[in-house]
Protein backbone atom coordinates (compact mmCIF):
# COMPACT_ATOMS: atom_id res chain seq x y z
CA UNK A 1 0.00 0.00 0.00
CA UNK A 2 1.38 3.38 -0.94
CA UNK A 3 2.42 5.94 1.61
CA UNK A 4 -0.33 8.38 0.73
CA UNK A 5 -3.06 5.79 0.85
CA UNK A 6 -1.85 4.57 4.25
CA UNK A 7 -1.82 8.13 5.49
CA UNK A 8 -5.31 8.76 4.12
CA UNK A 9 -6.66 5.68 5.90
CA UNK A 10 -4.94 6.79 9.10
CA UNK A 11 -6.62 10.18 8.91
CA UNK A 12 -10.01 8.71 8.04
CA UNK A 13 -9.88 6.30 10.98
CA UNK A 14 -8.71 8.93 13.46
CA UNK A 15 -11.42 11.27 12.17
CA UNK A 16 -14.06 8.77 13.31
CA UNK A 17 -12.71 8.96 16.85
CA UNK A 18 -12.48 12.75 16.58
CA UNK A 19 -16.18 12.80 15.65
CA UNK A 20 -16.88 11.12 18.98
CA UNK A 21 -14.97 13.90 20.73
CA UNK A 22 -16.86 16.43 18.61
CA UNK A 23 -20.16 15.17 20.02
CA UNK A 24 -18.86 15.01 23.56
CA UNK A 25 -16.69 18.12 23.80
CA UNK A 26 -17.95 20.24 20.94
CA UNK A 27 -21.68 19.73 21.20
CA UNK A 28 -21.99 18.99 24.92
CA UNK A 29 -18.99 20.80 26.41
CA UNK A 30 -17.82 17.66 28.23
CA UNK A 31 -14.07 17.19 28.37
CA UNK A 32 -13.10 13.56 28.40
CA UNK A 33 -9.39 12.89 28.78
CA UNK A 34 -10.06 9.18 28.51
CA UNK A 35 -11.52 9.01 25.01
CA UNK A 36 -8.32 7.52 23.55
CA UNK A 37 -8.53 4.71 26.11
CA UNK A 38 -11.77 3.57 24.46
CA UNK A 39 -9.95 3.54 21.12
CA UNK A 40 -7.18 1.47 22.71
CA UNK A 41 -9.69 -0.96 24.20
CA UNK A 42 -11.45 -1.27 20.85
CA UNK A 43 -8.13 -2.02 19.17
CA UNK A 44 -6.95 -4.56 21.74
CA UNK A 45 -10.24 -6.39 22.17
CA UNK A 46 -10.89 -6.82 18.46
CA UNK A 47 -7.28 -7.77 17.71
CA UNK A 48 -7.06 -10.32 20.54
CA UNK A 49 -10.40 -11.87 19.60
CA UNK A 50 -9.34 -12.31 15.97
CA UNK A 51 -5.73 -13.41 16.54
CA UNK A 52 -6.05 -15.55 19.65
CA UNK A 53 -9.64 -16.74 19.43
CA UNK A 54 -10.06 -16.79 15.63
CA UNK A 55 -13.34 -14.95 15.70
CA UNK A 56 -14.56 -13.43 12.42
CA UNK A 57 -13.49 -9.81 11.97
CA UNK A 58 -16.99 -8.32 11.96
CA UNK A 59 -18.03 -10.16 15.13
CA UNK A 60 -14.82 -9.17 16.93
CA UNK A 61 -15.36 -5.52 16.03
CA UNK A 62 -18.96 -5.68 17.19
CA UNK A 63 -17.92 -7.22 20.53
CA UNK A 64 -15.25 -4.56 21.04
CA UNK A 65 -17.76 -1.76 20.34
CA UNK A 66 -20.36 -3.24 22.68
CA UNK A 67 -17.80 -3.76 25.45
CA UNK A 68 -16.66 -0.14 25.20
CA UNK A 69 -20.25 1.09 25.07
CA UNK A 70 -21.03 -0.86 28.24
CA UNK A 71 -17.89 0.47 29.95
CA UNK A 72 -18.86 3.99 28.91
CA UNK A 73 -22.29 3.40 30.41
CA UNK A 74 -20.71 2.39 33.74
CA UNK A 75 -18.11 5.18 33.77
CA UNK A 76 -20.61 7.75 32.48
CA UNK A 77 -23.36 6.93 34.98
CA UNK A 78 -20.85 7.26 37.79
CA UNK A 79 -18.98 10.38 36.66
CA UNK A 80 -21.45 12.48 34.67
CA UNK A 81 -23.37 13.36 37.83
CA UNK A 82 -20.45 15.38 39.08
CA UNK A 83 -19.34 18.78 37.86
CA UNK A 84 -17.75 19.03 34.47
CA UNK A 85 -14.22 19.75 35.65
CA UNK A 86 -14.32 16.66 37.86
CA UNK A 87 -15.62 14.68 34.92
CA UNK A 88 -12.44 15.59 33.03
CA UNK A 89 -10.33 14.38 35.97
CA UNK A 90 -12.33 11.18 36.40
CA UNK A 91 -12.04 10.27 32.72
CA UNK A 92 -8.34 11.09 32.89
CA UNK A 93 -8.00 8.56 35.71
CA UNK A 94 -10.03 6.01 33.78
CA UNK A 95 -7.90 6.45 30.67
CA UNK A 96 -4.63 6.12 32.55
CA UNK A 97 -5.91 3.05 34.38
CA UNK A 98 -6.81 1.42 31.06
CA UNK A 99 -3.39 2.13 29.50
CA UNK A 100 -1.68 0.91 32.68
CA UNK A 101 -3.71 -2.29 32.45
CA UNK A 102 -2.67 -2.75 28.82
CA UNK A 103 0.98 -2.23 29.72
CA UNK A 104 1.01 -4.48 32.79
CA UNK A 105 -1.18 -7.38 31.68
CA UNK A 106 1.63 -8.74 29.52
CA UNK A 107 0.35 -12.30 29.08
CA UNK A 108 -2.70 -11.13 27.13
CA UNK A 109 -1.79 -7.75 25.67
CA UNK A 110 1.90 -8.17 25.05
CA UNK A 111 2.65 -5.31 27.44
CA UNK A 112 4.70 -2.32 26.35
CA UNK A 113 6.07 -4.37 23.45
CA UNK A 114 2.64 -4.18 21.91
CA UNK A 115 0.43 -6.75 20.26
CA UNK A 116 1.40 -7.70 16.72
CA UNK A 117 0.69 -10.18 13.91
CA UNK A 118 -2.74 -8.72 13.33
CA UNK A 119 -4.07 -9.40 9.82
CA UNK A 120 -4.80 -6.45 7.56
CA UNK A 121 -8.57 -6.28 7.23
CA UNK A 122 -9.04 -2.51 7.03
CA UNK A 123 -9.32 -1.92 3.32
CA UNK A 124 -9.36 1.67 2.03
CA UNK A 125 -13.01 1.24 1.07
CA UNK A 126 -13.95 0.10 4.56
CA UNK A 127 -12.14 3.04 6.16
CA UNK A 128 -13.68 5.70 3.93
CA UNK A 129 -17.19 4.25 3.98
CA UNK A 130 -16.97 4.02 7.78
CA UNK A 131 -16.01 7.68 7.98
CA UNK A 132 -18.90 8.63 5.70
CA UNK A 133 -21.35 6.67 7.85
CA UNK A 134 -19.91 8.24 11.01
CA UNK A 135 -20.35 11.73 9.55
CA UNK A 136 -23.91 10.85 8.56
CA UNK A 137 -24.67 9.65 12.10
CA UNK A 138 -23.33 12.83 13.72
CA UNK A 139 -25.17 14.97 11.17
CA UNK A 140 -28.40 13.09 11.91
CA UNK A 141 -28.03 13.42 15.66
CA UNK A 142 -27.47 17.14 15.30
CA UNK A 143 -30.68 17.49 13.32
CA UNK A 144 -32.77 15.64 15.91
CA UNK A 145 -33.78 16.85 19.34
CA UNK A 146 -30.58 15.33 20.74
CA UNK A 147 -28.61 18.01 18.91
CA UNK A 148 -30.82 20.75 20.29
CA UNK A 149 -30.65 19.30 23.79
CA UNK A 150 -26.86 19.23 23.58
CA UNK A 151 -26.71 22.91 22.79
CA UNK A 152 -29.25 23.69 25.51
CA UNK A 153 -27.37 21.71 28.16
CA UNK A 154 -24.04 23.20 27.12
CA UNK A 155 -25.25 26.76 27.43
CA UNK A 156 -27.60 26.49 30.42
CA UNK A 157 -27.92 23.20 32.21
CA UNK A 158 -30.43 24.40 34.81
CA UNK A 159 -32.78 25.83 32.20
CA UNK A 160 -32.50 22.60 30.23
CA UNK A 161 -33.43 20.61 33.34
CA UNK A 162 -36.56 22.60 34.11
CA UNK A 163 -37.52 22.22 30.44
CA UNK A 164 -37.91 18.54 31.19
CA UNK A 165 -34.66 17.34 29.63
CA UNK A 166 -33.14 14.46 31.57
CA UNK A 167 -29.63 15.87 31.55
CA UNK A 168 -27.85 12.88 33.07
CA UNK A 169 -29.49 10.44 30.66
CA UNK A 170 -28.65 12.67 27.71
CA UNK A 171 -25.00 12.96 28.72
CA UNK A 172 -24.67 9.22 29.29
CA UNK A 173 -26.16 8.50 25.85
CA UNK A 174 -23.74 10.90 24.16
CA UNK A 175 -20.81 9.49 26.15
CA UNK A 176 -21.73 5.94 25.05
CA UNK A 177 -21.95 6.94 21.38
CA UNK A 178 -18.63 8.80 21.58
CA UNK A 179 -17.00 5.77 23.19
CA UNK A 180 -18.46 3.49 20.52
CA UNK A 181 -17.03 5.74 17.81
CA UNK A 182 -13.61 5.62 19.46
CA UNK A 183 -13.80 1.84 19.87
CA UNK A 184 -14.71 1.34 16.22
CA UNK A 185 -11.88 3.62 15.16
CA UNK A 186 -9.55 1.59 17.38
CA UNK A 187 -10.61 -1.67 15.77
CA UNK A 188 -10.10 -0.24 12.28
CA UNK A 189 -6.71 1.12 13.34
CA UNK A 190 -5.56 -2.24 14.77
CA UNK A 191 -6.34 -4.02 11.51
CA UNK A 192 -4.76 -1.21 9.51
CA UNK A 193 -1.39 -0.77 11.26
CA UNK A 194 -1.46 -4.49 12.19
CA UNK A 195 0.04 -3.61 15.52
CA UNK A 196 -1.30 -2.18 18.79
CA UNK A 197 0.65 -0.60 21.61
CA UNK A 198 -0.62 1.08 24.78
CA UNK A 199 1.37 4.30 24.29
CA UNK A 200 -0.76 5.43 21.36
CA UNK A 201 -3.87 5.64 23.50
CA UNK A 202 -2.84 7.77 26.48
CA UNK A 203 -4.34 11.10 27.47
CA UNK A 204 -2.20 13.02 24.96
CA UNK A 205 -4.22 11.50 22.13
CA UNK A 206 -7.47 12.48 23.88
CA UNK A 207 -6.22 16.04 24.23
CA UNK A 208 -5.17 16.10 20.58
CA UNK A 209 -8.76 15.31 19.60
CA UNK A 210 -10.09 18.09 21.80
CA UNK A 211 -7.60 20.49 20.18
CA UNK A 212 -8.76 19.36 16.74
CA UNK A 213 -12.39 20.05 17.65
CA UNK A 214 -11.58 23.54 18.91
CA UNK A 215 -9.24 24.17 15.98
CA UNK A 216 -11.87 23.33 13.39
CA UNK A 217 -14.72 24.89 15.34
CA UNK A 218 -16.71 23.16 18.03
CA UNK A 219 -19.97 24.19 16.38
CA UNK A 220 -19.01 22.99 12.94
CA UNK A 221 -19.07 19.39 11.79
CA UNK A 222 -17.34 20.43 8.58
CA UNK A 223 -14.71 22.27 10.58
CA UNK A 224 -14.02 19.26 12.75
CA UNK A 225 -13.42 16.98 9.78
CA UNK A 226 -11.23 19.52 8.00
CA UNK A 227 -9.47 20.27 11.28
CA UNK A 228 -8.71 16.57 11.69
CA UNK A 229 -7.35 16.37 8.15
CA UNK A 230 -5.17 19.46 8.60
CA UNK A 231 -3.80 18.58 12.02
CA UNK A 232 -3.11 14.94 11.16
CA UNK A 233 -1.54 15.99 7.87
CA UNK A 234 0.53 18.82 9.35
CA UNK A 235 3.20 16.65 11.02
CA UNK A 236 3.78 14.91 7.67
CA UNK A 237 3.90 18.13 5.67
CA UNK A 238 6.18 19.75 8.25
CA UNK A 239 8.52 16.77 8.19
CA UNK A 240 11.19 18.79 6.29
CA UNK A 241 11.47 21.17 9.25
CA UNK A 242 12.75 18.20 11.31
CA UNK A 243 13.28 19.22 14.93
CA UNK A 244 11.14 22.35 14.64
CA UNK A 245 8.10 20.36 13.62
CA UNK A 246 6.31 20.21 16.96
CA UNK A 247 7.01 23.87 17.65
CA UNK A 248 5.58 25.00 14.31
CA UNK A 249 2.59 22.72 14.80
CA UNK A 250 1.87 24.33 18.17
CA UNK A 251 2.31 27.85 16.82
CA UNK A 252 -0.22 27.16 14.06
CA UNK A 253 -2.75 25.95 16.64
CA UNK A 254 -2.13 28.93 18.92
CA UNK A 255 -2.53 31.36 16.03
CA UNK A 256 -5.79 29.87 14.86
CA UNK A 257 -7.29 29.75 18.35
CA UNK A 258 -6.26 33.36 18.99
CA UNK A 259 -7.32 34.80 15.66
CA UNK A 260 -10.51 32.78 15.37
CA UNK A 261 -11.67 31.93 18.90
CA UNK A 262 -14.64 29.95 17.59
CA UNK A 263 -12.37 27.80 15.45
CA UNK A 264 -11.40 27.84 11.82
CA UNK A 265 -14.95 27.37 10.59
CA UNK A 266 -17.00 28.91 13.41
CA UNK A 267 -20.56 27.72 12.85
CA UNK A 268 -20.25 27.39 9.10
CA UNK A 269 -21.40 24.09 7.59
CA UNK A 270 -20.83 22.65 4.18
CA UNK A 271 -24.23 22.46 2.56
CA UNK A 272 -25.43 20.93 -0.65
CA UNK A 273 -28.52 23.09 -0.80
CA UNK A 274 -27.04 25.80 -3.09
CA UNK A 275 -25.79 23.06 -5.41
CA UNK A 276 -29.21 21.43 -5.47
CA UNK A 277 -30.83 24.77 -6.21
CA UNK A 278 -28.43 25.39 -9.06
CA UNK A 279 -29.16 21.94 -10.40
CA UNK A 280 -32.90 22.47 -10.19
CA UNK A 281 -32.86 25.86 -11.85
CA UNK A 282 -30.75 24.43 -14.71
CA UNK A 283 -33.27 21.64 -15.12
CA UNK A 284 -36.07 24.16 -15.37
CA UNK A 285 -34.15 26.07 -18.01
CA UNK A 286 -33.80 22.90 -20.05
CA UNK A 287 -37.48 22.25 -19.75
Amino acid sequence: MGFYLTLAINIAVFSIAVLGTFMLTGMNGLFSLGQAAFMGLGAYISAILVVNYHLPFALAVLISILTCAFLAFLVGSATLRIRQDFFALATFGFGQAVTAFMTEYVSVTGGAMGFSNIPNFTTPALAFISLAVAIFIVWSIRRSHYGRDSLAIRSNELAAKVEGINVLKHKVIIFIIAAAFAAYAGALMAFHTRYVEPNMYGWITSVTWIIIVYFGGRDSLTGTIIGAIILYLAPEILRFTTAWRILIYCVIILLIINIRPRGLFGTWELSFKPLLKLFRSKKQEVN
Partner: protein
Amino acid sequence: MDRPVVLSINNLTKMFGGLCAVNDFSGSLKENQIIGIIGPNGAGKTTILNTVSGVYPPTQGQIIFKGTDISKFQPHKINHMGIARTFQNIRLFQDMTVLETIMTAYSWRSPYSIFESMFSFPRVARYEKEIKEKSMHFLEKVNLVECAEVNAQSLPYGMQRRVEIARALASEPLVLLLDEPGAGLNQTEVHDLVELIKGLHKELGLSIILIDHRMDVIMNLCEWIYVQDFGKCIAQGTPEEIQKNPIVIKAYLGEEINNA
Protein backbone atom coordinates in the same frame (compact mmCIF):
# COMPACT_ATOMS: atom_id res chain seq x y z
CA MET B 1 -64.50 29.48 45.73
CA ASP B 2 -64.52 25.70 45.98
CA ARG B 3 -62.09 24.95 43.20
CA PRO B 4 -59.79 22.00 43.87
CA VAL B 5 -56.30 22.65 45.17
CA VAL B 6 -53.64 21.73 42.58
CA LEU B 7 -50.49 22.47 44.52
CA SER B 8 -50.05 22.68 48.23
CA ILE B 9 -46.90 23.59 50.07
CA ASN B 10 -46.84 22.35 53.65
CA ASN B 11 -44.44 23.72 56.27
CA LEU B 12 -41.65 24.28 53.79
CA THR B 13 -38.28 25.12 55.34
CA LYS B 14 -35.04 25.62 53.45
CA MET B 15 -31.73 26.16 55.20
CA PHE B 16 -28.47 27.09 53.49
CA GLY B 17 -25.95 26.15 56.14
CA GLY B 18 -26.93 28.33 59.07
CA LEU B 19 -29.07 30.68 57.02
CA CYS B 20 -32.76 30.03 57.04
CA ALA B 21 -33.93 31.19 53.60
CA VAL B 22 -37.51 29.98 54.01
CA ASN B 23 -38.98 29.32 57.43
CA ASP B 24 -42.08 27.16 57.71
CA PHE B 25 -43.95 28.42 54.64
CA SER B 26 -47.38 26.97 53.91
CA GLY B 27 -49.61 27.88 51.03
CA SER B 28 -51.88 26.42 48.42
CA LEU B 29 -52.72 27.09 44.82
CA LYS B 30 -56.18 26.38 43.50
CA GLU B 31 -57.12 25.50 39.97
CA ASN B 32 -57.09 28.47 37.61
CA GLN B 33 -55.89 30.80 40.36
CA ILE B 34 -53.07 33.32 40.34
CA ILE B 35 -51.32 33.69 43.65
CA GLY B 36 -48.51 36.10 44.37
CA ILE B 37 -45.58 36.00 46.71
CA ILE B 38 -44.16 39.40 47.53
CA GLY B 39 -41.48 40.64 49.83
CA PRO B 40 -38.26 42.62 49.91
CA ASN B 41 -34.98 41.27 48.53
CA GLY B 42 -33.69 38.21 50.34
CA ALA B 43 -37.10 37.35 51.72
CA GLY B 44 -36.92 33.81 50.30
CA LYS B 45 -39.37 34.20 47.45
CA THR B 46 -37.17 32.68 44.79
CA THR B 47 -36.13 29.92 47.19
CA ILE B 48 -39.76 28.84 47.42
CA LEU B 49 -40.00 28.60 43.63
CA ASN B 50 -36.69 26.79 43.43
CA THR B 51 -37.82 24.11 45.85
CA VAL B 52 -41.16 23.73 44.07
CA SER B 53 -39.44 23.33 40.69
CA GLY B 54 -36.88 20.90 42.13
CA VAL B 55 -33.74 23.01 41.74
CA TYR B 56 -32.91 21.93 45.29
CA PRO B 57 -34.79 19.82 47.80
CA PRO B 58 -36.35 21.48 50.87
CA THR B 59 -34.76 20.92 54.27
CA GLN B 60 -38.18 20.15 55.68
CA GLY B 61 -41.75 20.11 54.52
CA GLN B 62 -43.78 18.71 51.69
CA ILE B 63 -44.86 19.92 48.28
CA ILE B 64 -47.97 18.06 47.19
CA PHE B 65 -48.85 18.10 43.50
CA LYS B 66 -51.47 15.76 42.03
CA GLY B 67 -51.48 13.82 45.27
CA THR B 68 -47.73 13.12 45.21
CA ASP B 69 -45.02 14.63 47.36
CA ILE B 70 -42.69 16.08 44.72
CA SER B 71 -40.25 17.71 47.13
CA LYS B 72 -37.48 15.17 46.43
CA PHE B 73 -38.02 14.94 42.66
CA GLN B 74 -35.52 15.99 40.01
CA PRO B 75 -36.38 19.18 38.05
CA HIS B 76 -37.08 17.33 34.78
CA LYS B 77 -39.47 14.95 36.55
CA ILE B 78 -41.36 17.88 38.03
CA ASN B 79 -41.61 19.44 34.58
CA HIS B 80 -42.96 16.17 33.19
CA MET B 81 -45.66 16.19 35.87
CA GLY B 82 -46.86 19.61 34.75
CA ILE B 83 -45.01 22.42 36.50
CA ALA B 84 -43.08 24.87 34.33
CA ARG B 85 -41.19 27.98 35.34
CA THR B 86 -39.27 31.03 34.21
CA PHE B 87 -36.22 32.58 35.82
CA GLN B 88 -35.59 35.95 37.37
CA ASN B 89 -32.31 36.33 35.50
CA ILE B 90 -33.37 35.15 32.08
CA ARG B 91 -31.87 31.82 31.14
CA LEU B 92 -32.04 31.35 27.40
CA PHE B 93 -29.81 29.11 25.34
CA GLN B 94 -26.86 30.48 23.38
CA ASP B 95 -26.70 30.26 19.60
CA MET B 96 -30.31 29.19 19.32
CA THR B 97 -33.13 30.81 17.43
CA VAL B 98 -36.31 31.69 19.25
CA LEU B 99 -38.13 28.83 17.56
CA GLU B 100 -35.47 26.28 18.52
CA THR B 101 -35.56 27.52 22.09
CA ILE B 102 -39.27 26.78 22.27
CA MET B 103 -38.74 23.41 20.61
CA THR B 104 -36.44 22.24 23.43
CA ALA B 105 -39.54 21.96 25.60
CA TYR B 106 -40.75 19.09 23.40
CA SER B 107 -37.56 17.04 23.62
CA TRP B 108 -38.65 14.70 26.39
CA ARG B 109 -41.95 13.97 24.67
CA SER B 110 -40.37 12.96 21.37
CA PRO B 111 -41.48 9.49 20.31
CA TYR B 112 -38.28 8.56 18.46
CA SER B 113 -35.31 6.81 20.03
CA ILE B 114 -31.64 7.69 19.77
CA PHE B 115 -31.21 4.94 17.14
CA GLU B 116 -33.87 6.45 14.92
CA SER B 117 -32.25 9.85 15.24
CA MET B 118 -28.77 8.42 14.50
CA PHE B 119 -29.92 7.20 11.11
CA SER B 120 -32.38 9.99 10.25
CA PHE B 121 -35.45 7.76 10.21
CA PRO B 122 -38.36 9.50 8.46
CA ARG B 123 -40.22 9.67 11.77
CA VAL B 124 -37.62 12.12 13.09
CA ALA B 125 -38.19 14.71 10.37
CA ARG B 126 -41.95 14.24 10.62
CA TYR B 127 -41.99 14.85 14.37
CA GLU B 128 -39.59 17.80 14.08
CA LYS B 129 -41.95 19.39 11.57
CA GLU B 130 -44.89 18.76 13.84
CA ILE B 131 -43.28 20.36 16.91
CA LYS B 132 -42.10 23.28 14.81
CA GLU B 133 -45.73 24.06 14.07
CA LYS B 134 -46.73 23.57 17.71
CA SER B 135 -43.92 25.85 18.84
CA MET B 136 -45.00 28.52 16.36
CA HIS B 137 -48.41 28.32 17.96
CA PHE B 138 -46.90 29.28 21.33
CA LEU B 139 -44.92 32.08 19.71
CA GLU B 140 -48.22 33.40 18.39
CA LYS B 141 -49.55 33.46 21.93
CA VAL B 142 -46.74 35.74 23.08
CA ASN B 143 -46.67 37.79 19.84
CA LEU B 144 -43.21 36.76 18.72
CA VAL B 145 -43.94 35.04 15.42
CA GLU B 146 -41.90 37.48 13.38
CA CYS B 147 -38.84 36.80 15.59
CA ALA B 148 -38.95 33.01 15.15
CA GLU B 149 -35.68 32.80 13.23
CA VAL B 150 -33.82 35.41 15.25
CA ASN B 151 -31.11 34.45 17.73
CA ALA B 152 -32.94 34.49 21.06
CA GLN B 153 -30.18 36.23 22.99
CA SER B 154 -29.98 39.12 20.55
CA LEU B 155 -33.54 40.22 21.34
CA PRO B 156 -34.32 43.09 23.72
CA TYR B 157 -34.87 42.16 27.35
CA GLY B 158 -38.65 42.37 27.33
CA MET B 159 -38.88 40.06 24.34
CA GLN B 160 -36.44 37.59 25.88
CA ARG B 161 -38.78 37.39 28.83
CA ARG B 162 -41.63 36.52 26.52
CA VAL B 163 -39.49 33.85 24.85
CA GLU B 164 -38.94 32.32 28.29
CA ILE B 165 -42.65 32.40 29.02
CA ALA B 166 -43.39 30.77 25.67
CA ARG B 167 -40.81 28.09 26.40
CA ALA B 168 -42.46 27.38 29.74
CA LEU B 169 -45.90 27.28 28.10
CA ALA B 170 -44.68 24.81 25.51
CA SER B 171 -44.32 22.27 28.33
CA GLU B 172 -48.13 22.48 28.45
CA PRO B 173 -48.10 22.80 32.22
CA LEU B 174 -50.91 22.89 34.76
CA VAL B 175 -48.95 25.19 37.01
CA LEU B 176 -46.74 28.03 35.85
CA LEU B 177 -44.17 29.59 38.16
CA LEU B 178 -43.11 33.09 37.17
CA ASP B 179 -40.05 34.40 39.00
CA GLU B 180 -40.10 38.20 38.88
CA PRO B 181 -41.32 38.51 35.30
CA GLY B 182 -41.35 42.28 35.66
CA ALA B 183 -37.71 42.59 36.70
CA GLY B 184 -35.67 44.86 34.45
CA LEU B 185 -38.62 45.92 32.31
CA ASN B 186 -39.76 49.48 31.72
CA GLN B 187 -43.27 50.72 32.42
CA THR B 188 -44.77 49.95 29.00
CA GLU B 189 -43.16 46.53 28.93
CA VAL B 190 -44.55 45.77 32.38
CA HIS B 191 -47.99 46.85 31.22
CA ASP B 192 -47.75 44.56 28.16
CA LEU B 193 -46.56 41.73 30.38
CA VAL B 194 -49.49 42.07 32.78
CA GLU B 195 -51.91 41.99 29.83
CA LEU B 196 -50.10 38.97 28.41
CA ILE B 197 -50.26 37.02 31.67
CA LYS B 198 -53.92 37.92 32.08
CA GLY B 199 -54.68 36.73 28.57
CA LEU B 200 -52.75 33.47 28.97
CA HIS B 201 -54.38 32.77 32.29
CA LYS B 202 -57.83 33.19 30.81
CA GLU B 203 -57.11 31.33 27.59
CA LEU B 204 -55.17 28.34 28.92
CA GLY B 205 -56.76 28.03 32.36
CA LEU B 206 -53.39 27.94 34.07
CA SER B 207 -52.70 28.13 37.76
CA ILE B 208 -49.91 30.60 38.31
CA ILE B 209 -47.57 31.43 41.17
CA LEU B 210 -46.14 34.88 40.60
CA ILE B 211 -43.23 36.45 42.40
CA ASP B 212 -42.54 40.11 42.16
CA HIS B 213 -41.79 43.08 44.28
CA ARG B 214 -43.52 45.46 41.98
CA MET B 215 -46.87 46.19 43.57
CA ASP B 216 -48.54 47.14 40.28
CA VAL B 217 -47.85 43.70 38.78
CA ILE B 218 -48.94 41.77 41.84
CA MET B 219 -52.00 43.82 42.71
CA ASN B 220 -53.23 43.70 39.14
CA LEU B 221 -53.00 39.97 38.70
CA CYS B 222 -53.23 38.05 41.93
CA GLU B 223 -56.27 36.70 43.69
CA TRP B 224 -54.38 35.85 46.83
CA ILE B 225 -51.06 37.14 48.12
CA TYR B 226 -48.46 35.81 50.53
CA VAL B 227 -46.01 38.31 52.01
CA GLN B 228 -42.54 37.06 52.87
CA ASP B 229 -40.03 38.91 55.00
CA PHE B 230 -36.69 37.50 56.15
CA GLY B 231 -37.80 33.99 55.26
CA LYS B 232 -41.04 34.17 57.21
CA CYS B 233 -44.56 34.53 55.89
CA ILE B 234 -45.83 37.62 57.71
CA ALA B 235 -49.22 38.00 56.08
CA GLN B 236 -51.59 36.62 53.49
CA GLY B 237 -54.82 37.78 51.97
CA THR B 238 -56.52 39.41 49.02
CA PRO B 239 -54.78 42.38 47.37
CA GLU B 240 -57.08 44.83 49.17
CA GLU B 241 -56.34 43.29 52.56
CA ILE B 242 -52.61 43.24 51.91
CA GLN B 243 -52.54 46.88 50.87
CA LYS B 244 -54.13 47.88 54.16
CA ASN B 245 -52.18 45.48 56.37
CA PRO B 246 -49.96 47.49 58.77
CA ILE B 247 -47.39 44.66 59.14
CA VAL B 248 -46.89 44.59 55.37
CA ILE B 249 -46.54 48.35 55.18
CA LYS B 250 -43.97 48.19 57.94
CA ALA B 251 -41.97 45.50 56.15
CA TYR B 252 -41.95 47.53 52.98
CA LEU B 253 -41.38 51.01 54.35
CA GLY B 254 -39.58 50.13 57.55
CA GLU B 255 -41.85 52.15 59.85
CA GLU B 256 -45.37 52.39 61.05
CA ILE B 257 -47.52 54.85 59.18
CA ASN B 258 -49.90 56.83 61.31
CA ASN B 259 -53.38 57.32 60.00
CA ALA B 260 -53.13 60.25 57.73
